[in-house]
């Protein structure tokens, strides 16, 4: 379960574990990708031959007001796919962008069970809502290309309540 006071890191960890589950249990193109938690470090780029999915730390954007109780926190989290020429270039990044949009706009995202470790506690076959996370929407899809840096990316923003 998401812990009070650790929402940002816990949500990031749970979503990353969900992406890892998706990569490990799906066919192409997911099966040819990897997942990195947070911003990639130099070790990722040292052996960069496959597109990887990465996640920004969620941003706290507000809190729902609820009379007589604590309201739900609203977070926004950016996730994306990072490609280079060796990993398929702009085309692979565009595929990752559309796959992420498709995955998170499907209501099935909230009923898929996966394994996660949050705050040292292992959770087996839990869905995102069971962990205290609801994906409400996926917005702001955009392609980022820095051809001089051999960077091709596709990013989406997840609207989350927890």
């Amino acid at each position, binding site marked *: 379960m998401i812990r009070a006071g650790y929402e940002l890191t816990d949500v990031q960890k749970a979503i990353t574990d969900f992406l890892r589950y998706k990569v490990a249990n799906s066919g192409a193109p997911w099966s040819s990708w990897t997942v990195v938690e947070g*911003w990639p470090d130099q070790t990722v780029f040292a052996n960069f031959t496959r597109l990887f999915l990465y996640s920004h730390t969620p*941003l706290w*954007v507000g809190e729902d007001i609820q009379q007589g109780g604590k309201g739900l926190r609203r977070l926004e989290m*950016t996730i994306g796919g990072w490609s280079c020429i060796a990993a398929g270039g702009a085309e692979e990044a565009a595929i990752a962008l559309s796959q992420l949009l498709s995955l998170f706009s499907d209501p099935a995202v909230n009923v898929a069970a996966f394994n996660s470790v949050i705050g040292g506690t292992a959770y087996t076959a839990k869905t995102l809502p069971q962990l205290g996370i609801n994906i409400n929407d996926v917005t702001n899809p955009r392609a980022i290309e*820095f051809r001089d840096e051999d960077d091709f990316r596709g990013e989406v923003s997840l609207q989350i309540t927890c």
Partner: protein
Amino acid sequence: MFSVEFDTSGLKTTFDRANIEAMKGAIAAVKFGVEELMKAATRNLMGVAHPPGTKSPYPGKLPVTRISRELSKSMKYHFFNPISAIVYSDLRSANYAAYVHDGTRKMKARPFLKNAVSERQQAILNRMRYETLKRVGR
């Protein structure tokens, strides 16, 4: 001969007035939105100043540290019409804005504009609703 005549000119006048007031509300809300985004984005670019060639005191975090201040000065806005505007970083002033915003292999992203939108979008939408209802409700 029996006939019924409908005169809805009064209703049309009421609708026309409501449309005009709604438009005034939208204009005020867009102006507020541009001001809020400019303020929030500029605030995200007003980090600690440090000399050229030295390391950032807190790399990869917002607010972006300042060396030349060109990035904060590059924040601009433009009204296409009274109800449509854009807030942007002018690449002619700071051609590295996109690298700072979206990050590179060697530099973590610091999305100064995207985060400004995320932080202020609810306030802007609330103001839009308030400005419109306040005027149309009269």
